[in-house]
């Protein structure tokens, strides 16, 4: 706890400055106070938690699941076949330099206002970190270890399950950590483009109501969601990478 003492104090100072500043400016529909946001959060808790949170959550979870499955499969495939690697890897790297999110509005045209247009946006921005990190992980397999296992008579399958997968795991988790935070952003942006529920949708809707506290309240929940997901991934990571010394 002591480790984060300074941070906590800084947060308190920043919040206090915000509170005071916002009260002085006194433009609540543009600049809400932190206490105003909290009050709003409390007022709207039922709607936010039981209507909008589930909507966003399902986008995030479905999107992440699809990304993980597709990403890992593609990574394994690339690792398995040099031809596939040569064909796909440069594309995947290049596609990260492309603002794929900018075509998100088109998905609304394709998939309508169903959950899928938002899921696709989420997949689009989480797929690449997962694929790239998993593949880099598979590729990071120590060549000497592989040769050593071969000298013990290991089959391709042995190498894959006993060497490639454990080697890739830490990288996979790094990718997943990035993807998890991206997924929240993807869902929120997806919801801006057309939705009937969801925290991102609700936040933007509150803009149209000139309710700045209402804009921030769902974002507080989104942030909590982001941090929660991150912690969950770190928990899984710790469990399955017990052998790693914490630096």
């Amino acid at each position, binding site marked *: 706890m002591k480790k984060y003492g300074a941070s906590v104090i800084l947060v308190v100072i920043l919040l206090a400055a915000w509170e005071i500043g916002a009260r002085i400016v006194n433009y609540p529909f543009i600049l809400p106070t932190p206490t105003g946001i909290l009050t709003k959060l409390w007022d709207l808790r039922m709607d936010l938690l039981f209507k909008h949170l589930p909507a966003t959550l399902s986008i995030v979870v479905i999107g992440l699941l699809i990304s993980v499955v597709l990403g890992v499969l593609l990574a394994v495939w690339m690792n398995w076949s040099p031809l596939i690697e040569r064909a796909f890897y440069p594309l995947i790297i290049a596609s990260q330099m492309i603002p794929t999110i900018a075509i998100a509005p088109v998905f609304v045209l394709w998939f309508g206002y169903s959950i899928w247009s938002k899921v696709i946006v989420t997949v689009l921005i989480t797929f690449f970190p997962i694929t790239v990190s998993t593949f880099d992980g598979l590729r990071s397999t120590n060549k000497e270890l592989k040769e050593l296992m071969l000298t013990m008579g290991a089959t391709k399958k042995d190498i894959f399950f006993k060497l490639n997968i454990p080697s890739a795991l830490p990288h996979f988790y790094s990718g997943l950590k990035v993807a998890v935070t991206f997924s929240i952003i993807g869902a929120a942006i997806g919801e801006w483009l*057309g939705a009937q529920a969801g925290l991102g949708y609700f936040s933007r809707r509150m803009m149209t*109501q000139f309710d700045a506290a209402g804009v921030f309240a769902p974002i507080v929940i989104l942030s909590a969601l982001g941090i929660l997901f991150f912690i969950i991934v770190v928990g899984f990571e710790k469990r399955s990478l017990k052998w790693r010394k914490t630096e």
Partner: protein
Amino acid sequence: QDKENKAGDSKKLKDVTIMLDWYPNAVHSFIYAAQEKGYFKKEGLNVKVQFPANPTDSLNLAAAGKVTLGLYYQPDVAMARANEDVPVKSVGAIVRSPLNRVVALKDSGITRPKDLEGKVVGYSGTPLSESVLKKMVKSDGGDPNKVKLVDVGFELNSSLISKKVDAVIGAYINHEVPLLHKKGYKTVDIDPSDYGVPSYYELVAVTGDQTWAKDSDTIKAFWRAATKGYEYTEKHPKDSLQILLDNQDKSNFPLEKDVETKSLNILLPKMKSEHGFGSQTKESWQSNVDWLKESGLIKKKPNVDEMFENIGESK
């Protein structure tokens, strides 16, 4: 292209930004006419026209003082003022009765509000549209809760013809509807006032309270010039349409000449007032507030006098 930015004399001119309710179209002819004919400049103004990226920006930014004037819708102004104390007021009524329609494609089989039960309706995310629609369905004997509403931002037509929604509310009889017709789509248009919604000013010009306090003279000057622009438009609709077409944002929002001609024909009578262009009545505001209160869109009773400045009449 940027005639409003002619260097040199613009130095002494007072800068005014006006954010339209949407992309330039026939309803904005009077502004472009005033610009082109130099009425603004004569009043000492350098007017800059902006288009909103989000449906509610013209009100938001006017309230925040980021634009001098914004074009918006009367009931929404009343609600913003009443519910969130958003410091905006209307300074002029531009279109004096509703243009707003519920529009569905003919082959959808929708003919009246009750048919919307179980259907998806797209709208630009304003709470008013929600209430109007509910009111319409209800007065037609349907269950408003069975209608699914989707915020489609500005994408009213594209969501309709790509069949992502079954109907839209917020489409204008003078714009979206003729456009759809021109593209070969047959439509059903339902007028809200046929189903229990009172008449209102479709388009008003709003400004922030602070802007008003600081720059009311500027705004009055703007209005004088705008009125001249309106009068010019009324007298020379063809010419002013041409001015508009010359000023259109071609790459972003190309206008169809015949559509805009039709549109202006519909609009001109709706903009006319014997008390002067832009004049507003307390009764109109009061009846809207009453209706909004009745339908639960307004929680507390607001002060109607704060909502508008009747500068059109005071001329």
